């Protein structure tokens, strides 16, 4: 295929600014999808994406426009899935940067634009949703020009909803985004930028050909994995999969090569011809690292094996989830799982429950810590119960983020307060325009995991937006809090918190548990302790009476059934020392923690 006729781009934007809706209009206008097959956010194909109205996974599709072939990738906007954007960019020469004309630049707009610039990609900016009464395209065009340096007169004005301006946008794409470069005669170099597992076809990879050509029937060498596979099928997504005989330089398509494990066809992998291998692998990218961890336990203990199987299967499609078996005195057998963020955690949990018919308890999300011991060694702590004893500890480090907050300037004060109260250090503060503030803070990830985002939204009536990236580690005064029931620690409620927050956490947790632990035959002290020192205490007073109801009409059956139920209930209780705790109390306590 003539390289000059190819354009490769990603559609990037802040959450909800209309990427997937724009993709819809493009699919329609180019005739890729018939009007009668069209549905909103066509490319969001997972149930969970459709229900939540968000994109989780990037999707690529090939369309034809005025004699040109355009490969576009609809990317997710949410910060948890930012790695999907970086991968996608590696397969492109340009981006369409969509900005909501009623909101202007938000945190991910900036992050995406910077990323595009770093990758030397051409930016085609478009103000979307100009059909909205609140749209103010002039104002935001000026803002984009000032902040991102895109000349205002080059910014398109579109409505992905009505289709207004989308044809012009396609023209601009063809005009402004450079065609790919590549040499069909060089040995094959193809970049895998996404892989998913299909239960019938095995691993299906999205591939961008850089040099050479990929032909049906070829024997391939996967340079990073060091494995050889035969091509089963190659093709293009239009958006239906259409097999083709060959893919040449600059082209994007899919590859099926009889691979059963996505780990062998990772994003960033370079594919070459086994018979005539390329000398060098393409620049890959790092796998995203889990940032947030929690324990996942089956509500029904018998489901442990099912949960393991479900996690194995889920990981085939989502290699960013990590899991390791763990045991909890309170919750039984489960897994400590790692996620890219809170939304990712929520989605994985929901998928496990829905797609695998499981009922799960999740412990409170936590982050990873590094404990430096007095003997000079270092321990990674993913779970409060792994925290070494205080006397063996030299210091603890926790992960930090560089958080970028974009907000109307009127909230400057309250946002600074918020960041300070969450142990943030200001890096930068800048007025992007008279109305828009950019605040950059270094802030512990653990604080953001807590409820930072909700606090941010509620303090700014929803106007502030947040983007962040990992920013290394720093030492902190962290302590492990244990929660004890009648003197026995309950691992599910342990937490690692900053010393200054220990008291508050302990108070909250003991108070909450007092309301959830049923009264026993004796007083049950509920204590929060740091290294053996009690910092908060509540008591569940001993139960003094059960049923004293009248027996109406000779109804002995009712009395007996009541006892049977009580006995049944007792069997389902978990014993923490002498204290009987219904599973439901754990679930409740942990749910409230969310």
């Amino acid at each position: 295929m003539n390289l000059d006729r190819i354009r490769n781009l990603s559609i990037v934007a802040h959450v909800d600014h209309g990427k997937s809706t724009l993709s819809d209009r493009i699919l329609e206008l180019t005739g890729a999808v018939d009007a009668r097959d069209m549905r909103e956010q066509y490319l969001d194909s997972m149930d969970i994406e459709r229900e939540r109205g968000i994109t989780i996974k990037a999707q690529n599709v090939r369309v034809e426009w005025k004699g040109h072939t355009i490969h576009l990738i609809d990317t997710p906007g949410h910060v948890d899935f930012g790695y999907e954007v970086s991968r996608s960019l590696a397969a492109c020469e340009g981006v369409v940067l969509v900005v909501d004309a009623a909101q202007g630049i938000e945190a991910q707009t900036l992050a995406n634009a910077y990323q595009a610039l770093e990758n030397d990609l051409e930016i085609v900016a478009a103000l979307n949703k100009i059909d909205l009464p609140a749209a103010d395209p002039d104002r935001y065009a000026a803002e984009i020009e000032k902040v991102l340096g895109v000349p205002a007169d080059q910014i398109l004005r579109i409505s992905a909803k009505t289709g207004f301006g989308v044809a012009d946008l396609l023209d601009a794409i063809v005009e402004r985004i450079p065609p790919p470069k590549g040499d069909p005669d060089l040995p094959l170099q193809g970049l895998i930028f996404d892989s998913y597992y299909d239960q019938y076809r095995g691993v299906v990879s999205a591939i961008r050909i850089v040099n050479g050509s990929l032909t049906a029937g070829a024997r391939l060498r996967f340079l990073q994995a060091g494995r050889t596979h035969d091509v089963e099928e190659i093709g293009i997504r239009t958006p239906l999969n259409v097999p083709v005989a060959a893919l040449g330089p600059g082209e994007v398509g899919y590859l099926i090569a009889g691979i059963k494990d996505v780990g062998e066809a990772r994003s960033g992998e370079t594919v070459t011809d086994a018979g005539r291998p390329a000398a060098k692998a393409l620049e890959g990218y790092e796998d995203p690292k889990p940032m947030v961890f929690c324990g996942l336990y089956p509500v029904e203990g018998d489901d442990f094996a099912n949960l393991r199987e479900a996690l194995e299967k889920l990981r085939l499609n989502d290699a960013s989830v990590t899991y390791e078996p763990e045991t909890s005195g309170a919750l039984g057998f489960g897994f400590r799982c790692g996620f890219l963020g809170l939304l990712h955690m929520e989605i994985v949990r929901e998928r496990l429950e829905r797609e695998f018919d499981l009922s799960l308890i999740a412990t409170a999300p936590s982050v990873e810590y590094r404990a430096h011991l007095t003997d000079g060694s270092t321990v990674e702590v993913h779970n409060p119960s792994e925290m070494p004893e205080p006397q063996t500890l030299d210091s603890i480090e926790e992960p930090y983020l560089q958080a970028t907050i974009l907000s109307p300037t009127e909230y400057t004060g309250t946002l600074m307060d918020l960041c300070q109260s969450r142990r943030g250090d200001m890096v930068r503060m800048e007025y992007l325009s008279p109305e828009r503030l950019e605040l950059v803070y270094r802030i512990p990830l653990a604080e953001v995991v807590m409820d930072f985002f909700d606090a941010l939204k509620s303090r700014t009536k929803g106007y502030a937006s947040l983007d962040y990236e990992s920013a290394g580690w720093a030492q902190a005064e962290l302590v492990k809090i244990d929660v004890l029931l009648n003197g026995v620690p309950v691992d599910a409620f342990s937490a690692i918190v900053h010393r200054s927050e220990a008291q508050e956490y302990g108070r909250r947790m003991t108070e909450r548990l007092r309301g959830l632990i049923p009264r026993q035959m004796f007083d049950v002290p509920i204590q929060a302790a740091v290294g053996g020192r009690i910092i908060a205490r509540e008591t569940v007073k001993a139960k003094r009476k059960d049923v004293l109801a009248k027996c109406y009409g000779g109804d002995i059956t009712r009395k007996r059934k009541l006892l049977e139920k009580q006995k049944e209930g007792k069997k389902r209780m978990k014993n923490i020392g002498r204290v009987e705790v219904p599973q439901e109390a754990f679930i409740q306590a942990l749910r409230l923690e969310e």
Partner: protein
Amino acid sequence: MSPASRPAGGDFGVYVHVPFCTRRCDYCAFATWTDRFHLVDAYVEACVVAARRRLDPARPATSVFFGGGTPSLLAPGAVGRILAAVPAAAGAEITVECNPESVDRDKLRGYRDVGVTRLSFGVQSMVDHVLVSLGRDHAPDSVLRAVEAAGDAGFADSYNVDLIMGAAGESVDDFASSLDQVLGLDPAPAHVSAYGLTVEPGTPLAAAPGRHPDPDDQADKYLLADQRLAAAGLEWYEISNWARPGSSCRHNLLYWSQGEYEGLGCAAHSHSVDPRTGRARRWWNVRTPERYVKLVGQGGSGESAAEVLEPPARLQEAMELALRTRAGVPQGALPGWGTDESLDGLVELHGDHLVLTSRGRLLANEVAVRLA
């Protein structure tokens, strides 16, 4: 001989359910109606027919209990018609539950004349605001009058007072005052029952969480009741029942000793034991008076559903029921006794039986689930 293997025979009770009330109390989820008085005659007739059909003159009742609802809404003639159809043993205990408001001397004499030997008054409280809070339609004064009438009609030594603990707004002093006033009645009651107010789903009370009883408050009142009643010579013989020696309610004891009884009327429960297999059957009648009248009219018994208890389950049930009474359970029935700390202070040894203490009675279910 253990209760489970006791052959049929001995005491036999008949329960007659009277599903009519003049107004529904706030907490009541029981099978009773305030708008079906037009059914009374047909209903009484159905009970008479069912009694003739179901009861065996060779097995005369040792106790008959008219419960409700408000049985005292029935005229003595109606009670008499039913009793005439119930074969009763000589000296049988025949109780009618009465709302203090719905009785007078003539009615009570009438009951006496048709064979009633015992009355049970739904007093609930002797404090005005507590009665209002319970949604009852009588005033404390009517209790004084009703009890005086009971004395005049020959029930001086054979009437019971029901009390309820834990109405919204009832202080411990209020309850103490109710107890004192009840014990001070003239004639004084030979039998008192005290129940914890219980929140039943679907009642107005259930919909008002702010008015739900506090279990600790109920526990305090229970202990107070136990003390004062004992001091007045009324001994507990079952968790909720206290009586002068010899004045226990025979019909009530039948329930707790796994005795046999036949329920007449809607929502009434029955119990029988097959002496050959040792299997017990518990069954209950349809819930509404209409359906009961209809089914009996069609030649049926009015039964709605039943359960069968095999001997092991019966033995278990026997222990659970016996535990509620002063008889207690054989020591071996509570294997945790002496080791399980949670039983400390809840049961004590009387001879070779373990009997609930007053604290234990409050936690009878907790003790019962620890039975072998």
